[in-house]
């Protein structure tokens, strides 16, 4: 039995990766780790897009992925800067302590 990798397989991996990312965001307390989990979500989406692009013989998916990578890079720059600033202020990056805007 020759095993070929189908679109479904890619999508299942992508879905698992996304679920993993969400779980990371929900469970973890450290802002930096939440950030990494977020990146995982983005890459899950990238994977799905590439898979669609490959199997449907369309180039748009890849173009979109480039955009996502570029934007993610920018976002990381900003996000990390925010986290650094937060740390300087609070001496902590735990999201449990960032509740000053609550009622």
């Amino acid at each position, binding site marked *: 039995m020759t095993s070929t990798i189908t679109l479904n397989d890619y999508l299942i991996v992508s879905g698992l990766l996304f679920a993993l990312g969400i779980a990371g965001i929900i469970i973890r307390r450290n802002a930096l780790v939440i950030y990494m989990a977020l990146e995982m979500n983005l890459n899950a989406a990238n994977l799905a897009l590439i898979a669609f692009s490959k199997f449907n013989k369309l180039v748009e998916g890849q173009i979109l992925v480039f955009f996502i990578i570029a934007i993610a890079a920018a976002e990381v720059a900003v996000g990390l800067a925010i986290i650094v600033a937060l740390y300087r202020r609070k001496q902590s990056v735990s*999201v449990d302590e960032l509740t000053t805007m609550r009622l």
Partner: protein
Amino acid sequence: MNHLIYMYGTDWGMGRFPICSVWILLFTPLVATALITLFTKEHKGLSAALSIGAILLSFALSLRLFLLFALKGIQHEPHPFQWLVIGNSVRIEFGMTTDALALLMLLVVTGVGSAIHIYSLGYMKGDPGFSRFFACMSLFTFSMLGIVISSNFIQIFIFWELVGLSSYLLIGYWFEKPSAAEAGKKAFLTTRIGDVGMMLGILLLWSHAHTFEFTELKAKLPSLDLSIGTLALIGALIFMGAVGKSAQVPLHVWLPDAMEGPTPVSALIHAATMVAAGVYMLCRVSWLILPSETAMWLIAWIGGITALMAATIAIAQNDIKRILAYSTLSQLGYMVMAVGLGGPTQAMFHLTTHAFFKALLFLGAGSVIIALHHEQDIWKMGGLRKKMPITFWTFLIATLALAGVPPLSGFYSKDEILLLAYEHNQVLFVMAVAAAFLTAYYMGREVFVVFFGKSRDHHLYDHAHESPWVMTLPLMFLALLSIIGGWYSKVPDFLGPPHLAEHHSLLLTGGLILVPLFGFLVAAKIYWKTDPSDAPVKAALGKLWTWIENKYYFDELYAWIIKYVQGTIATICDVFDRWILQRLGIGGLSVGTGLIGRTVRLLQTGSISGYAFFFGLGATLIIYYVVVR
């Protein structure tokens, strides 16, 4: 001025000059008002000159038009101009009516008005608002002239309201006095009640006939096939306007209070203008009222009741001007009754003569008031006959004319109305005769108390003096008119059907002559002594006197109605506004929004994991919903 007129036409005898002259005679007083208020407020003499000049010019032009019509039969009706068009159905013109009725009224308004304007020069001397007074007088004249020459209902209504406005300004002329300000307000609001009815009548008529023009309506009316009820309703509603303006029962309460204005204003309102407007309007649209028996009946009875009731109130008044005010009410009642009995001609005749002698009476009273330094209580006067001979004699002439003593003008016109009543309605005839008797009686009382006997306030008496010539000259002019006003028996003919006086027995006419004489005799018996008082009458009338003295409690009744009925409605509206609209509507919205906001804010826990969880849950649900469904 002539140059300007001639520019518009070469055929100045009968061509366009008369047309222009109607426009000029209407708008000159308005121009005077504008000039006075804008430019000459500081120059009292110039203001008065403008105002008097304007009305004299109007008078001259009216006289010319009248004579052209009366002697040569030339009538000029300027072409109306389209003023307002709404859609295809509503077309309002600004036209000019110059028929016999309008010409006669123009003459009365401008003639009597001129005398009053000149008289004001003396009466208002030294008043701080001198210029404002003359501006308002000119505005009043303009409004009244507008009513007279109106050719459609909308136009007459606009000028009608303008008269209301200018009367408000003039009655409340001494606005720093609370009573005067109140009186102005009362006059304005009371007449407004009638005006609402009049407007409804006009609209109702329009909804059937689709035109406002008098001439078109008159021609169209028979072919409209209006039901008796509709005709009666239209007649009654339009009559409501006259009830307000001509101060008929039950809207008469504003007129005695209007005495708060300066005396020339009282003369103007009571003789030539405002109150005459109602009667004039009824005569103008008599073709509308005549077909409806019910409307005629209503008008006749309201007039009759007003005539008698006002005459009884007049016998118990102590203010020299208030007696005259109630007398005016009574005489207006006669005129309205005449219209209701199918005699607009007689009504106009009486209106004309009444304008002469009533203006004279008011101006005479004003002369007395000025001489006594604004004292109006007749019981503080007395013996003024020798001090003020011209005022006395002219006042006496007017009194006799008002009472209807031949051969003065009042006799002819009042006789016509009494005979008309005799022919149509015996009950009204008896009421009218009773009112005629009372007229002579209360006027006799006023004359005897004010001019005869001995003076009751020596300080006032010693300072009393005859008025200056600017005041006595108009008195003499009006006295002349009061004497000869009725002689021109062609006046009624001039307006329409011949008068009736000749057809009746000598006995009836003779009897009617005796009525005022009898009234004077009774008055003389009671009041022609050195120290007269109301005591014998008071004793004879008993409880009735209290009623009369309090004007049948009309003011109290209205105060009660306003307090309880109108007050209750106001309270309900207030509660609705304050509690339903404000608290429940607006307040409810704001409180509700606040509550919802407060509740929803609880969801903001500040826990990022929580947000992420709900976000994930939501996203999953949406995907599930989209994919599975």
